[in-house]
C-alpha cells in the first residue's frame, strides 16, 4: 500500500471511534484523543484494528506514535515497508 492508500484506510478505521459532529474535519495534525474525542479506553482497539488491517505488529511502547493522525500514518508506512 502506498501512503495515500494507508491514509485513506486509516481514516476509515478511526471514523468508527471519533466522537465529533463532522468527521470530515480530520487532518493529519489532529490528535486522536484531544481533537477527535476518541474515548481513551478505546485507543487500544484502534491499535488492534490497525494491526489486523495493515498486517503489522505494534508494540506497547510504540502506541504513543498513534496520538496524532499523521504520525500514525507515518508509522504504519514505515512498518509496512519493513514488513
Amino acid at each position, binding site marked *: 500500500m502506498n501512503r495515500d492508500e494507508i491514509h485513506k484506510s486509516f481514516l476509515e478505521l478511526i471514523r*468508527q471511534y471519533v466522537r465529533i459532529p463532522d468527521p470530515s474535519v480530520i487532518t493529519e495534525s489532529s490528535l486522536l484523543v484531544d481533537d477527535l474525542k476518541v474515548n481513551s*479506553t*478505546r485507543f487500544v*482497539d484502534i491499535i*488492534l484494528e490497525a494491526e489486523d488491517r495493515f498486517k503489522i505488529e505494534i508494540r506497547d511502547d510504540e502506541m504513543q506514535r498513534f496520538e496524532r493522525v499523521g504520525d500514525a500514518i507515518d508509522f504504519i508506512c514505515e512498518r509496512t515497508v519493513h514488513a
Partner: protein
Amino acid sequence: MNRVVITGLGIVAPNAVGLEAFRLALCEGRSGLGFVPQMKELDFGCHVAGIPQISDQTAAAYLGPLLKTTNSSMRYALIASVDCWRDAGLPPPQSDSDVDWSTAAIIGSSLGGLDTAGELVVPETNAGRVRKLGSSAIERVMASCATACVSGLLGLGGQAATNSSACGTGTEAIVNAYWMIREDRIDRVLAGSTEPSSVYAWAGLDSLRVTMRKSNDQPQAASRPLSASAGGLVPAGGAGILMLESLACAQSRRARIYAEVLGGHSNGGGQRNGGSITASNPEGVVRCVKRSLEAAKINPSEVDYINGHLTGTAGDTKEIRCLSAALGRSLAEMPWVNSTKSLIGHGLAASGSMESVATVLQMVHGFLHPSINCEDFHPEIAELAPRVPRVSTPVPCRVALKTSFGFGDVNSCVVFRRWD
C-alpha cells in the same frame, strides 16, 4: 415513608420486544420458544429456548456504536431501559446532558457476561492472545456490565448496583428499589434484571437435567408449568425494567401511573427443612409471601392474582401448596394464577422482572394471559385448575403478587395494586 408507584415499563422478551407488542403477545397467548440448532449441535438434552428477536434496525437505532462493546444481556437491558425511560415520560438522554442525581439503577443479573466469557475471554486467553481481547472485554464480563452501561447512557447519578440472587434476582431488584424509595433514599429507580441468550449460560442447567428434553420437536409445547407432563424448564434470555418512583415525585411531574408497589420482601430458607442449593425450604417461601403482605398491609383475601414462579418442573406443585398456605386459602379459593414462563420460558435472573412487567400490564389492561400447555393439569393440585386461565380472560385484578424463587434457596415477593 414514601408511597412507591410504577411510572414506566420496558421489555425485551422472547415473544415480543416493546410494551405494546408484549401486551398483544400475552393477550394472544403467543409462545416465544423455538428450536435452537446450536443446542442440538452441542449435544444438549434440550434443544429449545426463548431468544428475544431484535432486528438489526432496532439494534442500530437503540445501540449505535454500543453494538461493538456490548453482549446480549447488556443489549436487552439497554433497550428495555431506554423504552422504560421514554415510557415514564422522561426527556431523551443526551451524551452531554447533566447528571440525573435523582435516579438510581438496580439491574440484576445472574449469568450476564457468560456469553462474552465463553466466546471471547476464555478461548483467547487459553490461546495466549490476551493482548487481542480489546478494550471492552472487561466491561462485558463484569457482573455489573448491564447496569454500568445503562447508567452511563442515561447519565444516572444515583446508586448503580447489580443484585444477583439466581432466579429470584428480578423480583428482588424491584423489592430493593421499593425500599430505597420508601425510605426516602432516592426519588426514582430503574429496577429490573437481564440475562443473556447463550448456550454457556444454559449448559449447567442442561447438565443438571432440569431442562425439558421431551419436546424438542414441539418447541412451543415445551414449557409446561402446572402440567402433569411437565418435564423441566426451558431456558430463555431477556430483560424487564420498571421505573419505580415516589408518588410525590411522580405527581410533581404529572407522570402517568400504572400501579402502586405496596410492599415486598426477600429472604432465604437456609437450605434446611427440604431446602437445598436447588430447592426451596417451604417455610421460607411461606414466610416471604406473608412478610410481603404484611409490608403491603394487604389481607390475603384481597389478593386477586398471583403471577407465579412456576417453571414447569417438579417444584410447581410445591410452590402452589406454599402459596396456598401463605394466603390461608384452599386451592379452590386461591386467587387467579398463571405462569408467564409457559409463553416465554424461564428467563432465569430476568424472569422476575419480565414477569412483573407482564403482571402490571395485565392489571392495567384488565385481562389475564393464558397459562398454556397445562391442558393435562397436574392431578396433585387439581382443585386449582379453575383458577388458572387457559385462554385470555378479562379479569379486573386490583391486587397482584409476583413471586420468584431461586437456586441458593432464595425467595422474593412483591405486591402490586392497580392505580385507579
